[in-house]
């Protein structure tokens, strides 16, 4: 189908974009268009105004300093996938992006667009939760920073309210010697996950473990019991198996045409264990 009519604005500065969003609660920001454009074509959304962010160059780019990395919300997925600065400290981004869509969609799709859309089976929200990312959300009069845990509310829902725009994602430096792992099962390469897991582990200090599972129907979910299992079992093979079992026990998966709930539950554990083994293998010390 074809998009419904709307007013179209393509501001070149963030301030102009925020002013347009402040003026009109029915306006929708357009990032890479890989989710919003299909919704417009199906007429699932009928915004009064489309505020195209593609001409705001200040919203794209990756900066790394001693505290971590800042990824502009309009950074294309392909650029994040290839960024050597991210690959060095946050290889989880690259591992996950290889599963996100296809060549054509990654060339347009953005990091911020995927996070703000928060498809319940999307890879990037899970990765941001595992990396303890913080999101900067701006409005015409001010800004706030939201932890990934609070940002991803539920399927297709984030903490962003009308008039606000996700502008940047901050990744704290990973703990020393961190290992990261990602595992996914999808029907076809590039499809959304039936189940996926993103893991960060480190032996530094008292130890660090993040176990996040997605694809269960409600977006990314941290599994504290699996994290405790990895830490208590000192990242051994028995701890990995226990973490997988904990992930299966903690999720409440949906049943749909892609997979029944019992299968998703089982695969959640398999993916968590697989990603954990990978992450542990890459961990220093």
């Amino acid at each position, binding site marked *: 189908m074809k998009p419904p009519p*709307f007013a*179209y604005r393509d501001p070149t500065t963030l301030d102009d974009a925020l002013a347009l969003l402040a003026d009109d609660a029915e306006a929708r920001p357009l990032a890479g268009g890989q989710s919003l454009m299909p919704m417009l074509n199906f007429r699932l959304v009928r915004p009064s105004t489309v505020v195209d962010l593609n001409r705001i160059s200040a919203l794209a780019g990756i900066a790394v300093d001693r505290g971590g990395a800042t990824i502009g919300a309009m950074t294309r997925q392909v650029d994040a996938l290839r960024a050597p600065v991210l690959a060095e400290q946050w290889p989880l981004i690259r591992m996950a992006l290889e599963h996100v869509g296809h060549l054509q969609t990654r060339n347009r799709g953005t990091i911020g667009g995927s996070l703000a859309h928060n498809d319940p089976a999307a890879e990037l929200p899970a990765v941001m939760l595992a990396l303890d990312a913080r999101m900067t959300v701006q409005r015409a009069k001010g800004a706030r920073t939201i932890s990934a845990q609070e940002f991803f509310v539920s399927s297709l829902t984030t903490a962003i309210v009308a008039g606000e725009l996700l502008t940047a994602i901050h990744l704290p430096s990973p703990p020393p010697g961190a290992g990261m792992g990602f595992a996914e099962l999808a029907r076809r390469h590039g499809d959304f996950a039936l189940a996926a897991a993103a893991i960060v582990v480190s032996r530094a200090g008292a130890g660090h473990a993040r176990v996040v599972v997605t694809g269960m129907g409600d977006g990314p979910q941290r599994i504290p019991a699996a994290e405790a299992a990895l830490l208590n079992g000192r990242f051994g093979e028995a701890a990995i198996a226990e973490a997988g079992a904990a992930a299966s026990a903690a999720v409440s998966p949906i049943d749909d045409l892609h997979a029944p709930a019992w299968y998703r539950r089982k695969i959640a554990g398999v993916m968590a264990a697989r990603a954990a083994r990978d992450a542990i293998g890459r961990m220093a010390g």
Partner: protein
Amino acid sequence: MMSSETRTIRVTINGRAFGRTIETNLLLSDFIRHEVELTGTHVGCEHGVCGACTILFEGKPARSCLMLAVQADGARIETIESLADGERLHPLQTAFAENHGLQCGYCTPGILMTMKAYLAETPRPTEAQVREALSGNLCRCTGYQQIVEAVLQAAALMRGERP
């Protein structure tokens, strides 16, 4: 119902500049097919799933059904019509013909444009890499095997090897 706005845009397609006044909700795929009348770019699903509408936007493969024409103002686009040099086929076209890489041909323009950009970056792909690079293009006829063979042969031709 709100009536649409219009805007005048200038887009360079296959090296030629086109100026048109269009409605702002016009899809880029429809602009290419209906306004510029380059109908080689196909539209299969119109929601970003099939890849038939793939064009090169600023040199990179993109789905033209997921862009608005107005977003292409000032941009450089290449479509399937740019692939052959007059009567001389591009190595991808030769290889697809020789390997039966198409049957109905509906998916072919999107695949060739995707592969043109892919092979420019990856001149020596493995079969597994070609399959992954093709994952954003659906073909309902061939079963993909001949497409993969055609891409591998095209890569060899473009490297100056005659397989």
